[in-house]
Each structure stands twice: as C-alpha cells, then as structure tokens.
C-alpha cells in the first residue's frame, strides 16, 4: 500500500447524499478478477450516456456533459467532496479501487458508510469526516473558485483551505500509523501469531463443535 502523508489536491464536488457503491462502480465491472483498471468505469452510469460493459475503450464513449466529474475544471482532482453516508450499500472493495484508480486520494464527507470507510484505509485512501457546516462552506468555495485546492495534512489531522483556515479531523491512531507508513495489515497482525494460536487452542477445547 502507498503511504499517505500530505496532499495538496484539486477538489471535485459531488453534491449528493447516500452515494452508494453500485453508483461508484456498477456491478458489471465486478466480474474482473484484478484489483486495478476500474478508474475509467468509476461512476459509470452517471459519467457516460451509454450503458457500460467490461472491456470497452471508455475514451470512445459519449460522456454526460452534466456530470460534475466530466467538467474540465475538475480534471485531475484528488480530493472528492460529498455529503452524507457516502459509500453505502455493497461491500465491494472495487469502489475504493475505482476511486483510487480515477485519481482520488482523499474523500471528505459529512459521514461514510462503515464498510466503505474501512475499505478506504486498506487502500491508502483517507476518508475524512467533517461537520455539516464545514462541508457546506467547502461546497460553496469549490463551486465559486476554479482550481480550488485543499491541503490534507494527516500528521496534523487538518484540512487546510486556500485562505489558510484549518479544519481539524479525527482519525484512529492505529489507522493513521498504517497510512503514514504504508503498512500492510496482515504483516502487523501476524506479529501476534502466537496469541492467535493460543486463542484458537483454547477455543478448540471449549467449543469443539466450531472446529468440526
């Protein structure tokens, strides 16, 4: 996993509540057995005028000019700004894979769905929860200011606006460490292999039916 420390990135606004993972990456693309290459199909149904199928050359497809991420001013965005309950629905990790492949490294929202939130950290994307009033103010600024960028400073746990105003955010100490160092969870867990064995043996004696 790539490290995440500090980001100075263009912001794209997706002004909706309850953006679900089916919308982020429609199911026909889940048939892939790879982890990469989902970017061109991120938000497929909103982004293109035709119905997307796996294996198409997306550069040839008609784009929906009304979809915000298609607007020239948001090309190259690295920070996605959205509203409540982002990433709800299916647990598909293809959703953060698609966002990452598209170029997003951080997502700012009022709230996230739980599994999606978790999946972001496993892929080096930082999901940031900010109060509704701050999110609202950011939407107004982004829309009013072409080229609007935000600094996301993970060590300082703050989102810094171009006017210098800093908005603090919370992140679990453990997850922060993992992101800052690009650590692989599995390697960390296996440091406790002895404890896992010990727990398992006890369980095998107490509840043998679980080990049939």
């Amino acid at each position, binding site marked *: 996993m790539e490290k995440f420390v500090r980001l100075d990135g263009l912001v794209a606004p997706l002004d909706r509540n*309850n953006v679900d993972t089916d919308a982020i990456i429609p199911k*026909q693309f889940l048939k892939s057995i*790879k*982890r990469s290459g989902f970017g061109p199909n991120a938000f497929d149904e909103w982004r293109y005028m035709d119905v997307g199928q796996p294996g198409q050359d997306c550069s040839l497809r008609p784009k929906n000019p009304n979809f915000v991420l298609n607007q020239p001013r948001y090309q190259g965005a690295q920070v996605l700004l959205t509203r409540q309950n982002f990433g709800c629905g299916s647990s598909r990790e293809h959703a953060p894979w698609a966002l990452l492949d598209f170029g997003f490294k951080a997502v700012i929202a009022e709230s996230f769905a739980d599994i999606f939130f*978790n999946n972001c950290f*496993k892929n080096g994307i930082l999901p940031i929860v900010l109060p509704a009033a701050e999110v609202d103010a950011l939407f107004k600024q982004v829309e009013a200011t072409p080229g609007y960028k935000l600094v996301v400073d993970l060590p300082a746990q703050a989102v810094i606006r171009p006017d210098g105003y800093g908005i603090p955010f919370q992140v679990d100490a453990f997850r922060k460490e993992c992101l800052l160092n690009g650590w692989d969870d599995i390697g960390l867990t296996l440091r406790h292999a002895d404890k896992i064995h010990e727990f398992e043996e006890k369980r095998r004696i107490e509840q043998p*039916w679980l080990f049939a």
Partner: protein
Amino acid sequence: MPKTLYDKLWESHVVHQEDDGTALIYIDRHLIHEVTSPQAFEGLKLAGRKPWRVSSIVATADHNTPTDHWDEGILDPVSRLQVETLDANIREVGALAYFPFRDPKQGIVHVVGPENGATLPGMTVVCGDSHTSTHGAFACMAHGIGTSEVEHVLATQCLVQKKSKTLLVAVEGRLGKGVTAKDIALAVIGTIGTAGGTGYAIEFAGSAIRGLSMEGRMTLCNMAIEGGARMGFVAVDDTTIDYLRGRPFSPRGDAWEKAVAYWRTLKSDEGARFDRVIQLKAEDIQPQVTWGTSPEMVVGIGATVPDPAKQTDPVKREGMERALQYMGLNPNMGIKDIKVDKIFIGSCTNSRIEDLREAAAVAKGRSVAASVKLALVVPGSGLVKRQAEAEGLDKIFTAAGFQWREPGCSMCLAMNADRLEPGERCASTSNRNFEGRQGPGGRTHLVSPAMAAAAAIAGHFADVRDLL
C-alpha cells in the same frame, strides 16, 4: 455488570487489544463467493502466505451463475472466468464445504450457510458481502468485509476491529395478517434512515421478533446493513435451537448438549444498557413499499408518494426530486396506482422456503396480470428449491404464470442475464433499490414476497391483506 449480547459476542472473540481499543477479533466462519475473493486469493499467493484454517471456509458460486439452462453452463465468458477462478482457488486451498455451480446444494451464500448448520450461535461470521449481517439471526457477530479483509482473514483468521455502539430495536406486539419480517425491516429503516445505524450493532428484540421464524429473523438481520448498521442480531431461543437440530454441520450427541447449554447464554442480560433504543409497535406496521432509490424512501401500501415540496431540508428535497425523476413517479400519487413490469421473488433477503410459501399462498389459484412481462421466482438454494417442489409450490407458481428458476442471486443485482431494461419497473423482494441495481435505468420497489405476488396478480401494487 449486566452485559448485552453484543458484549458477550465481542468479549469471547478478542485475541488481543491495543490501548486505543483496536482489537484483533478471531473469525470462526469465513464464507466465500466468486466476486469478492479472486483478488484476495491472488494477494495471498503473491505474498507467499497460506490460509490459516481452511476448515473455517464455506464457499459457493452465486452472484454470476445463470438461473436457467444450467446444462449450457455459464455463457458469459467474463462471469465464467470468475466462477472458474473460485473453483481453482478452492481446489488449491481446500474448504470445509464447497457448493460449486450446479451442485445440488449450491445457492446464495447467506442461504446456504444457515441451512447446512454452518452458521452456529456465538460464531463470528464474515464474508466479502455486506449482507453477511443475515447470520446475526443465530446470535452471531456477522458482518460484511472488503476484499483486503477477506485476504486478512484467510492469512490470519482474524480481523482488526473496533467495538461498535449498541442499538436495541424492540418490536412489541403481534404483526397483522399479511405483515412480515420484511415489512418490519423496511419500517425500521424508514424510521432510522439508511445511515441511522452507522456505528451501531443492532439487537432486534421484543415479542414480535420472538414470534418470527428463523427465516423471518434472517430477513430482518439481512436488512440491518441497509439501515447503516454493520450487523444485526437476535438472541438464541427455542426457535434457534429447533432450527439447528440435525443440520449437516450442527454438532451431535454430547457436543450438541454442551453447545445448546452455551447457546442459551447468548442473550442480553436483564438490565443491560444500550447506547440507543428504538421501539416500534407491531400493530402499527403496514405492508411496506419503497418509492425511491434508497431503502429509507418507504411508505405503507395505503399511502401516497411523498411530495418533495413539503421537505424543508434542501439537500433532502433535491434527493427526493432526483429519486422521483429516476423512478418516473409523481408526488402525491397513490402507491396502489403504480403499475409494475416485472416481479422478482428471490435474493438472500427473501428466497427461503417460508418466503416462497408466503408468495405461493397469494399466487394460488390466481394468474399473473397480462401487463406483467416477467415474474421470476428464484429459490435461494438447491435445497430450498427441492423442498418447495416437494410441497408443490413450483406448480402453484408456474400455473399462475411465474417462471420457476435455478438458485442464485439473479435479479437482485443483475450480474447474470436476469435484469431490468431501462425504465422497467419491478416489484422486488431483494434489499436494494439503488439506481441501476437491477439493471441500468431499472426501477426497483422493495416489498415482501407476499406483496410481490400481490403486485404480480394485480399488475400494480396492491394490499396483500385484501387477497388473503
């Protein structure tokens, strides 16, 4: 101190805990299907790691598999590759049980686990699938995980977790005739909202829940995720134990007695504290129908489509307007005036034997309306299918004009050939009415199996209570 069921489940699985509360949680059962596992197996192999305990794995192919012409195999080459990749991965690493495509016991992962006794009370159950919450019906700590976590469980038999808050949803009283677990689930989501359960583990309790069968409890816990909760569960009682007796992977003899004694402790203690409590009266719950593109956009069958003009929150109002536009509905029209094109009875929410019995009771001796293009009944597993056939339910459905299919996820998410065409409207017993969920441009209304059957007969939404 009195403990909640969640406290008990959590504490009995902590392998190690960090100071900030992050814990390593031991996983008893790992369910696997073809869509969310290939990258995990590949990752494991690339890192030179071996699965920790293959006897925890129960696998099946369900999302991509066709529901008819099984003799022809899987025609879509991309779907076929995914299913074959699962075959190859399981062949290589092994499993407690594998129900591949065309196996007599193949089916939807959340139907197959419980019916084989592979889901037992007190377990932690995970799967790369959000509806893993279904297994909470057996007093399990059961939830969906992403593919990285699938790999993590394969490699370590653990997950890194933080304890959730607890939400008690108490439903007291008796459900009215024609009102089912699905209606409770939708009514709860309508009350708390799709993000209302975020950060919580839900315990469903109260006399109305006690009165549900295991099938009903599975339907309810299945939908916990649609209320934002990672998991939902129900305490163990006689209904749980009766269901498990004699299932293939249930314990036997002395082990059964010992297990039952332990399982009976799996309930919240008298006086246990919850972070939040919600109470519903069973008598107040009507058969539910969703009108929008989120499960919280739901009303009773007698109601009208809500009017965004009456919504004061601008973001919510815009969401409602967008949903109505997508759904092709006008504010204030009667739910019963909404005509349907297709009917789908199936999915891990409502494809068990009891669901099919409820739908068949409505369909019996009646016919699907001529305006309905397709009415599908897709049993949740091969076992459900044969049981239904033994009871003659298939004959009732086909005589009424429904199609009787092979088991799988089918039109719940339309990864196989069963799907809606753009603009088509479906009464569906599945769990998600998101834009495009059942096919690009398709319009989904979530209902119970009995209500889906009633809509099939009427050609529009109808109150099933008038047909019973």
